[in-house]
């Protein structure tokens, strides 16, 4: 029997329009062959730009933007769909193959009720009656662990949480009983505590419905939990293709080995030291609300060390940064920095206060003026705080570029000409230029590929050793915390629920929330998901 999906020598191209140059064709996917049998799950893994989503969408013969499927064969149920006409494609999309997008929040139509959207394909393709479709949708809502499956569909997308939307999207994909579902980073945008539940729900739904799946992700630990086979991609080419167990335990290629061992930096924590930043009983709320987003937060950050603030989205991590920087003046509490008490609001802080406290953001892209060169961007704080101009400034900028390991040739480039990791490095150099005592790093590696993120973390550690700068490191990623922190504060709903040295915080006994958080981080290990779920079941039964 032929495989359900059989991709042979696939080649995908697009036209790129670099500014100031003639348009040229670029190859996104080159000579990739892969197949999925009925009821099996294939994991596609690689960094951004590796072509995983492009290959995933090619299973529906869909090219995003101007992407063209230029060569090879895409055999779906035995027939080549690469050059099928639009009517034939409409007939197979949403019926034989369905799609689960990364951001369900954006992928649901905000103007329509969930039920209408979930059963839409079953009706338009004439697969079942409205009553049957609704019944199946309710059954799927229940299977995916959504609350009140009977009435869940009457809600609008904005009325449910991100994790619930992701499950609803899975229900939408499964409703028309497709042969193949493409999951495109379905848990990447979720908190780690939500991710594990959604992952388990998806895995169970795949198993129970017997559907085949393409599971696309950049996180090898996640895909190891659901896939039967894994295809590792890089720059649009196959790196390695094999059964999941072999890829995880016995990778043949260097690149795969790097992916497997990623996030294994372990940082030895530094001994106690006098604090550079001391936050005492800080409480804050946004104007016009009567809800405290920070409640009585007390933490210290020793000079030249790293305090990691962890928690899920909405826990108040970034709000804490806003309170420290003065963007959100606290209603109560004191913030002491470098031996002096900081005034609450930004306007009444001295220039030294501003200089010694710098920030790096998650989105390096939006944190830089796209019309300024790297030299101008890094030179600005030199000019502003130290009055440097001309050659003096240029020499200092070059020194900073050397420090962030970017060397010559970058000073006159524009941000658009840099990669994601390089952009983040420039932001780090800009922060360093002010000679700060403290840098607040707000999810600085979250938008980066794992290997690139590792590079940034190593750089930050080196810089800390050289410059004796302290970091307040905000992240939701516990692997990052292990790699960089000296002290850890776990935040939940605006409060610090656990705080201390890294070893203390990460050593049992845990409080309930920290336990949940720590045990939810996917581990590069087969069967990890089942173990955690079984463990949790036992505990809840024991209670």
């Amino acid at each position, binding site marked *: 029997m032929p495989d359900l999906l059989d991709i042979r020598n696939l080649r995908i191209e697009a036209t790129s329009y670099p500014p100031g140059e003639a348009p040229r064709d670029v190859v996104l996917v080159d000579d990739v062959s892969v197949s999925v049998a009925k009821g099996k799950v294939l994991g596609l893994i690689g960094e951004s730009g590796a072509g995983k989503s492009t290959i995933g969408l090619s299973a529906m013969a869909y090219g995003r933007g101007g992407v063209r499927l230029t060569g090879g064969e895409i055999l779906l149920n035995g027939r080549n769909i690469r050059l099928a006409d639009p009517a034939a494609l*409409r007939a197979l*999309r949403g019926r034989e193959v369905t*799609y689960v997008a990364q951001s369900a929040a*954006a992928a649901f139509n905000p103007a329509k009720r969930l039920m209408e959207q979930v059963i839409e394909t079953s009706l*338009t393709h004439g697969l079942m009656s409205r009553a049957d479709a609704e019944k199946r949708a309710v059954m799927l809502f229940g299977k995916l662990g959504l609350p009140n499956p009977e009435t869940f569909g009457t809600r609008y997308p904005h009325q449910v949480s991100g994790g619930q939307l992701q499950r609803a999207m899975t229900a939408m994909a499964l409703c028309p009983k497709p042969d193949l579902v493409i999951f495109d980073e379905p848990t990447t945008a979720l908190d780690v505590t939500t991710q594990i539940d959604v992952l388990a729900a998806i895995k169970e739904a795949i198993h129970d419905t017997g559907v085949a799946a393409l599971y696309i992700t950049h996180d090898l630990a996640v895909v190891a939990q659901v896939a039967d086979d894994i295809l590792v991609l890089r720059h649009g080419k196959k790196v390695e293709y094999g059964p999941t167990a072999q890829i995880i335990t016995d990778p043949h290629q260097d690149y795969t080995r790097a992916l497997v061992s990623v996030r294994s930096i372990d940082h030895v924590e530094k001994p106690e030291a006098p604090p550079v930043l001391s936050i005492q009983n800080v409480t804050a709320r946004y104007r016009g609300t009567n809800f405290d987003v920070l409640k009585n937060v007390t933490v210290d950050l020793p000079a030249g060390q790293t305090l990691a603030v962890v928690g899920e989205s909405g826990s108040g991590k970034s709000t804490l940064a806003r309170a420290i920087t003065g963007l959100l003046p606290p209603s109560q509490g004191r913030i002491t920095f470098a031996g002096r008490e900081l005034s609450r609001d930004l306007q009444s802080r001295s220039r030294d206060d501003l200089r010694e406290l710098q920030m790096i953001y998650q989105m390096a892209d939006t944190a830089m003026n796209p019309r300024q060169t790297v030299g101008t961007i890094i030179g600005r704080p030199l000019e502003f705080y130290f009055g440097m101009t001309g050659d003096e400034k240029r020499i200092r900028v070059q020194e900073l570029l050397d420090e962030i390991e970017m060397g010559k040739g970058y000073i006159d480039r524009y941000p658009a000409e840099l990669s994601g990791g390089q952009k983040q490095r420039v932001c780090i150099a800009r922060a360093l230029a002010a000679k700060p005592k403290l840098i607040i790093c707000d999810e600085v590696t979250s938008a980066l590929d794992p290997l690139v993120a590792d590079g940034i973390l190593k750089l930050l550690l080196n810089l800390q050793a050289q410059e004796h700068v302290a970091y307040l490191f905000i992240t939701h990623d516990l692997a990052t915390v292990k790699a960089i922190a000296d002290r850890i504060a776990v935040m939940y709903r605006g409060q610090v629920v656990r705080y201390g040295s890294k070893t203390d915080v990460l050593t049992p006994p845990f409080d309930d929330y920290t336990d949940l958080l720590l045990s939810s981080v996917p581990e590069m290990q087969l069967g990890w998901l089942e173990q955690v779920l079984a463990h949790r079941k036992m505990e809840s039964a024991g209670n």
Partner: protein
Amino acid sequence: MHPILKLVVQRIALGLLLLLAVSLLIFLGTEALPGDVAQAILGQSATPEALANLRESLGLNQPSYVRYFQWLGGILTGDFGVALTNGQDIGQAIGQRLGNTLFLATCAAVISVPLAILLGLVAARYNGRWPDKVISGVTLSTISLPEFVAAYFVIFLLTQVIPIFQPVAMVFPGMSFWDRLQAVALPVIVLVLVVLAHMMRMTRAAILNVMQSAYIETAELKGLSPMRVIWQHAFPNAIAPIVSVVVLNLAYLVVGVVVVEVVFGYNALGQYLVDHVAKRDLPVVQAVGLIFAAVYIGLNILADVIAIVANPRLRHPK
């Protein structure tokens, strides 16, 4: 209170406040003109005694704020005063013409709004291909023609070349509805040609903007037909910008069509206003100005309310 109801009440209250401010502006504007009503009535050869007597009898000697509140009070009780030129009751004169204005505007709107939206959807569906180019080309040409040129062209075409309509759009009390429709056919055609392009272009732009969203990709990957994607998934999210432009054009159909009225001899508010501006009949100008302002503000409140109701986040709060 439901948040929508609260927002609607807020908008209406703001609208009334705005209307009050406009009435003050209109009053002050006419106040600031050189000369006054007495002088306008008696003309330049008036003797100072005659002027003083007339001012006394018209109450013009009272301070302006007293006269403003008298004027405002009159309007609130339905009394717009009398026209200086012919002594007619302004309320009565306006009432009939306002009816004619609204009839013409409604006829034009009933045809042009659905047509513009439909053409906009089709143009968006075939974005950049020949149906889009034809629709855009034709509607942009008609909006580029001055109204009177379009009017004469339509008159020439439909009364001379193909003689199916009367060139004059005379209406009078007691006319049957059907006769009225026939009478306004030509001006309606001209107005449709004039307002179509703006609404069509905005519909097209709003739809194309929404077509960039991730949920449109979801709809395409569901294998839905292009027209269903546009109608079911794009249009409900593009209502707010479309409505705001539709309303702008509706307001224009009520307050801005004096040229078309004159060309077709249609007896409506625009022509009435321009006649009395020429004669410096200030009470009429004030009254009509206030009515036009009320129409503008009312329609814009309507647009706001529709935009609010079309937003599921406001309709169904968490």
